């Protein structure tokens, strides 16, 4: 698994910009709720990038194992 980071920039007017690095799929949505809770803030704008649609390697392996188990 690659590095997973959240970059949070807090402006002097109080506005917050956050970007995730290396977080794929559903983990992105979890990040929104996590940041809203941690920062006591409300998301007013969001944008998904191509990385969101990528399937984490760990998930691919898990699905494969699951499928194999069902066949037996």
């Amino acid at each position, binding site marked *: 698994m690659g590095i997973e*980071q959240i*970059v949070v*920039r807090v*402006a*002097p007017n*109080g506005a917050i910009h956050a970007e995730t690095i290396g977080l794929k799929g559903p983990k992105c949505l979890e990040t929104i709720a996590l940041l809203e809770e*941690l920062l006591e*803030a409300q998301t007013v704008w969001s944008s998904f990038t191509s990385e969101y649609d990528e399937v984490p390697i760990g998930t691919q392996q898990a699905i494969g194992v699951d499928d194999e188990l069902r066949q037996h």
Partner: protein
Amino acid sequence: MSISLVLIPLTMAAVGAWQASRKETDADGRTVCHVQTRMRDSELLIAALTDTKAAVTRSAQTITADWHGVRAQFQRDSSGIWQVDFTGEVDEQRAPEIVSAIDQAYGRQVQQTVLAKLLDRAPSAGMTVASQTVEDDESVTLVLNVGARS
């Protein structure tokens, strides 16, 4: 990058900025300049007013700030956002200038509060601070490693 977000702290109204000044006359014939702010938190407002060198007094429903010749009386509107009436040596041009100064001081208070919360709460969310940088525009950037999160 997988997601990009803009968040507004709950201590601020999610409107772009404070609203323009509206001039009225009160029952005593004094000119009152009314301005709607974006500020919600009373403690941060008091701290911001103090930063602007105001003499601040607080009662149950209002916060009053006095500078030389100008008085600002803050009250919450129906949605909990502070609105302010200026009296004294103030007009429709001066009132927004004063609110702008208070708004900037409030923003800095919110910034410090947000950063303190993040630094305090990140470890319990399984995150560690990889770096903290103050930018040229006085923004503060925190890079958080989330590898430890389950």
